[in-house]
């Protein structure tokens, strides 16, 4: 009995020492070495690919954000239509009232997790579709899927080229810019598939809006 207790203790001691030494290797040296290489060789990427406009950081090109002009009486954010709008984000978070663009909180990433038969999701998709069609003056059948569904991370930085093109005319009108200019701006900001086949074509909303702001500035 005593023998087996001391054997077990010895074995657990070996296990603990193995864990500690591997913790130093995998839990301290490994992340520090990778951080060292990352900060030396890829400083910009390793620190979140920040985007600056007029000398000020305006966010990360990897993370979506909201473009609102305050909130309405019910406390729901009102989209600022001078700017291109991102996808809806219905992930985790506090503001669950309205269907359209209520979130993009950088510290609560996540998806709606609603299934394809969920009545809340069906209703939200239909409402968003109506809103997009009405706001941008297009038939509902022209509204792309990414405009009415929320993403996996809740922080999707991109929209589809279709959704960006659909918004262009209204954005041009709100900013007093020629439609052709804004349409060209959108076309210039479409990133194709990586190497021609990876992923889907997309438009980075923050970069597009930053360029749009520069355009408005240069004219004003």
């Amino acid at each position: 009995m005593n023998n087996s207790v001391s054997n077990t203790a010895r074995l657990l001691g070996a296990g603990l020492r193995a864990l500690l030494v591997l913790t130093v290797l995998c839990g301290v040296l490994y992340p520090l070495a990778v951080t060292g290489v990352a900060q030396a060789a890829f400083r910009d990427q390793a620190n979140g690919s920040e985007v600056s406009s007029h000398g000020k950081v305006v966010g990360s090109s990897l993370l979506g954000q909201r473009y609102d002009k305050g909130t309405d009486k019910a406390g729901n954010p009102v989209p600022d239509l001078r700017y291109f709008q991102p996808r809806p984000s219905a992930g985790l978070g506090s503001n669950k009232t309205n269907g359209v663009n209520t979130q993009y909180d950088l510290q609560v990433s996540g998806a709606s997790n609603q299934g394809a038969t969920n009545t809340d999701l069906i209703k939200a998709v239909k409402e968003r579709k109506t809103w997009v069609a009405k706001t941008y003056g297009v038939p509902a059948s022209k509204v792309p899927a990414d405009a009415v569904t929320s993403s996996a991370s809740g922080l999707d930085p991109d929209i589809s080229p279709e959704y960006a093109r659909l918004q262009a005319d209204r954005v041009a009108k709100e900013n007093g810019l020629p439609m052709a200019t804004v349409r060209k701006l959108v076309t210039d900001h479409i990133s194709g598939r990586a190497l021609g086949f990876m992923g889907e074509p997309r438009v980075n909303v923050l970069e597009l809006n930053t360029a749009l702001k520069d355009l408005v500035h240069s004219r004003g």
Partner: protein
Amino acid sequence: MSPILAGVLQLIALIAALALAYRPLGDYMAAVYSSPKHLRIEKVIYRCIGANADAEMRWPAYLRGVLAFSVVGVLFLYLLQRLQGGMPLSLGFASISPDQAFNTAASFVSNTNWQSYSGEQAMGHVVQTAGLAVQNFVSAATGMAVAIALVRGFARSRTGDLGNFWADLVRGTVRVLIPIAVIGAVVLVACGAVQNFSGIHEVGQFMGGHQQTNGGAIASQEAIKELGTNGGGYFNANSSHPFENPNAFTNLFEIFLILVIPFALTRTFGKLVGNVKQGYAILATMGVIWLGFVALMMWTEFAHGGPALQAAGAAMEGKETRFGVGSSAIFSVSTTLTSTGAVDSFHSSFTAFGGGIQLLGMMLGELAPGGVGSGLYGMLVMAIIAVFIAGLMVGRTPEYLGKKIGTREIKLAACYILITPTLVLGFAAASMVLPDALGSMLNTKALGAGAHGFSEVLYAFTSGGNNNGSAFAGLNANTPWYNTTIGLAMLLGRFLPMVFVLALAGSLAEQQPVPETAGTLRTEKPLFAGLLVGTILIITGLTYFPALALGPLAEGLS
């Protein structure tokens, strides 16, 4: 180019990359686990452990090593989380509650990485890097060690010796996982993944003002999380978070990291048993199932059935624009057919049949290609069953790789395949009759009259029992009931099968090899691979079909 064509091309590129890595990596791992030499750093580690790395272990000793190391791992990780509040570099996060800390410790040590917490709101630098990321390495290395022990059982005769657990653990970590993880992490950073220690800081916003955002050792954790088929995300959104997975290339690269070791281990197996064709037969079995599942998933996701997705026009709910439907489908199949559980798109929002495919992938026991190590030993256990069934059909004593499959071997293999279904179906059934457990289902408004809610619970226990860790996240799993029962399912679903695998290895290693005759079933031929696929599908199908009928099938057909 249509999205479907782009999806297919991405699949082809992925297969080509895996094929290129197959032989060099498989041969390298075979050399790692059979080399008599120790590296200098390994000698230092053995001295710290106080272990003689050259001492052979019989199966009970090998098992004791696995269990002792894992018990210590659970306790250490539990304490680390419980004491987080008082530690430096905790980013101001409080200590984790006892049931959640147990759940998380069980989850990472069992290579499951089920998460009932949101990474960005709960875990500081110390727990993430010195706790969770360490288990990402060592739980994977443990799985590989057990697989190698089983392979030695086939390769050796008239001995009970299976190698040395400490040597296998350390070599797997130092020579296989760390080098690939370093390269993987640097590639990810170069493509935009974040790697710093800036913690929580403010970042300016376009419309003015600031928001809080998290920095951290993200890329380094991401690389090993995929490579070790772990899956626990730095952020709640896991690999869909742009800081973890910034673009379409990194997405394919992460799928590659998930699959590369489990597939290459079949080459290692072939090398070690002295017949690489035996490895190809296992590889073919894994490959056929994986490819079949990917094809089915792409078909159902591009068809986007279900009223909400029909109204939207594509299955984009819970998917990122930069990945799209095609590469999200490949990721989701690869993560559920291995024990990974990382997600680049949210499984609960897939089509009902897509959810069924994910569930079935885990229910197969995650062996196509499966977790690092666990996929190979799971598949070899299935091969034993297939050989047995074939033996019954032609009335011959079954044998595999020159070893007789007798009563003892079949009993151990049968115990192995019964464990997870018992855990999964038992706990899911219990949750259906407990009011508290039922209250956690968020999708009770589903048109399928609760079918989606049932799928969520079934998914949670399937994911836990099979050590996957992905979630049909509509379930609020952070309750004492789910934290505790899923924690138990993860531990029992990981370590009980290892007991039977090692016992099996010991029993095989003691045998005298039987000479090959004209009547021997040729287990390196396509016929056997076909038989193996059939055996896997029938065993899983019969076990889980009733439960699947109540969940995804009922929802998809309603």
